[in-house]
């Protein structure tokens, strides 16, 4: 530590640290942005490796289904419980369906699903690409004249975006089920009243906002996890560091995307 200039001039230590963080952030954002460009350029249906695509769709989507469904069911239930006191006070039983589903569909469903998806699929993806990188498999692909971005990244990005949206649709349905069940058991709200209240007051747009958000979240997680995976350095411990950095960066990215899209998609 004593060798670094920062401790030699304590006054400069804090601005120096902030500067380093900003530079690192710009580097990573730029890297992820470049990767997005590279992916978009290669988006031609015929050039996508079908086998890789289907393998990833299965691995990322189907195997995340149980935990995502459970998360969604609980979320639906929680939203009903949060709405419950207001429902009781104003005796607004025909509002509870709408109150619970509005926030779940628009906001919490996509957000929670994205966070779980990030921890499970994003982290795995970084670990897998990172391991390939540090064991020189990525260079081996290049040596075989196979483009790593086209072969490795494009199918993963497509699979993550598609699956994130699909999981969101399923999650919405399951969350609705969880909410109906909780309302019936806890508040004695008839499922038919609950559903009609939800359907009457919800616009298609509320549902679509959630889907657009999950599309953005999926893209964010896909880009971040692929970028950190391919930028892995420093052997096996480097893979661990990359996974950690990727999970945190993706989560932050999801929150930022959520914030921006919430205001744009009013």
């Amino acid at each position, binding site marked *: 530590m004593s060798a670094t200039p920062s401790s030699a001039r304590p006054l400069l230590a804090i601005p120096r640290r902030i500067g380093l963080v900003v530079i690192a952030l710009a580097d990573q954002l730029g890297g992820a942005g470049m990767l997005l460009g590279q992916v978009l350029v290669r988006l031609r249906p015929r050039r996508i490796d079908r086998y890789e695509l289907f393998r990833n769709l299965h691995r990322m989507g189907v195997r995340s289904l*149980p*935990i995502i469904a*459970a*998360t969604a069911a*609980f*979320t639906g*239930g*929680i939203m009903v*419980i*949060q709405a*419950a*006191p*207001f429902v*009781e*006070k104003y005796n607004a039983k025909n*509002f509870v369906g709408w*109150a619970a589903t*509005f*926030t779940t569909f*628009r*906001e919490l469903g996509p957000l*929670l699903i994205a*966070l*779980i998806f*990030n*921890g*499970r699929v994003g*982290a*795995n993806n970084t*670990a897998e690409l990172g*391991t390939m990188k540090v064991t020189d498999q990525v260079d081996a692909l290049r040596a075989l004249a196979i483009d790593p971005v086209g072969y490795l990244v494009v199918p993963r990005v497509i699979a993550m975006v598609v699956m994130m949206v699909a999981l969101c649709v399923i999650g919405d349905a399951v969350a609705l089920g969880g909410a109906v069940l909780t309302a019936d058991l*806890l508040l004695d709200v008839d499922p038919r009243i609950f559903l009609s209240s939800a359907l009457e*007051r919800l616009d298609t747009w509320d549902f679509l906002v959630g889907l657009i958000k999950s599309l953005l979240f999926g893209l964010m997680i896909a880009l971040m996890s692929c970028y950190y995976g391919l930028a892995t350095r420093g052997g*096996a*411990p480097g*893979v*661990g560091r990359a*996974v*950690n950095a990727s*999970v*945190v960066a993706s*989560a*932050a990215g999801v*929150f*930022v995307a*959520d*914030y921006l899209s*919430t*205001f744009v998609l*009013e």
Partner: protein
Amino acid sequence: MRSGLTRSIAALFEDAHQLGSLFGRTLYYLLHGKREKGSVARMMFEVGNKSLLFMCVTMGFIGAIIAFQTGLQAKKLVPDFSMIGATYLKLLVRDLAASLGALPLATRVGAGIAAELGSMVVTEQVDALRMCAADPVDYLVVPRFVASVVMGTVVLIIGGFVAYLAGMAVAQMVFDVNPHTFTNLSMVTTGDLTLGLFKCITYGGAIAIVSSQRGLATFGGSEGVGHATTEAVVGSCFAIIVLNLIISTLGYFFVPAL
């Protein structure tokens, strides 16, 4: 599909059993263990230092989003926004500050704990501790548990405060509610505070227990450590959501909201 479902249910019960057993042993050593000087303080610094900035950033965004959604919903029900601050603060204190903040906390702290313990397992350091009469639960899990409960609560409260400021800013800019009207604590009861605090403490403990269990169960080299880290994040998030449903249901019956 059917066998897959039964298998995942069986795995869920197995996990619950493992977690319960680890929790029991942690409580036992918390009372009877050999205190290691300074280890709790060091872990507290680690937990707080690692998560504070991340927490402030995410809770800032979450606070803004939730305030916006609450406003949208309020607009459809009642024409005026005078109660938006009161409602928002009640929701924040009673649930959202703890339950939404716990997810980024789990991502950061849980991953850290699992990666650290996992790499100690694969480098045989945990076995070496056992040989030195230092039970891993006593020596490793207890300080992390205490640190995560205490600092997790502190960080969640700070995060909640940031979310309140962000919500206030959104209310001012989007719905034209001035900060004075927004800062309305009339709907926040002692029960809400107790419930929110209880949630913070529970989530902090759950993150430490789930992540430690995953970390100590690591096998198979550095790849195993990566796997354990992933499972710790997902497991902690899931535990938080499940606990939230349980505590909120109990709160509905025993801590009336209005």
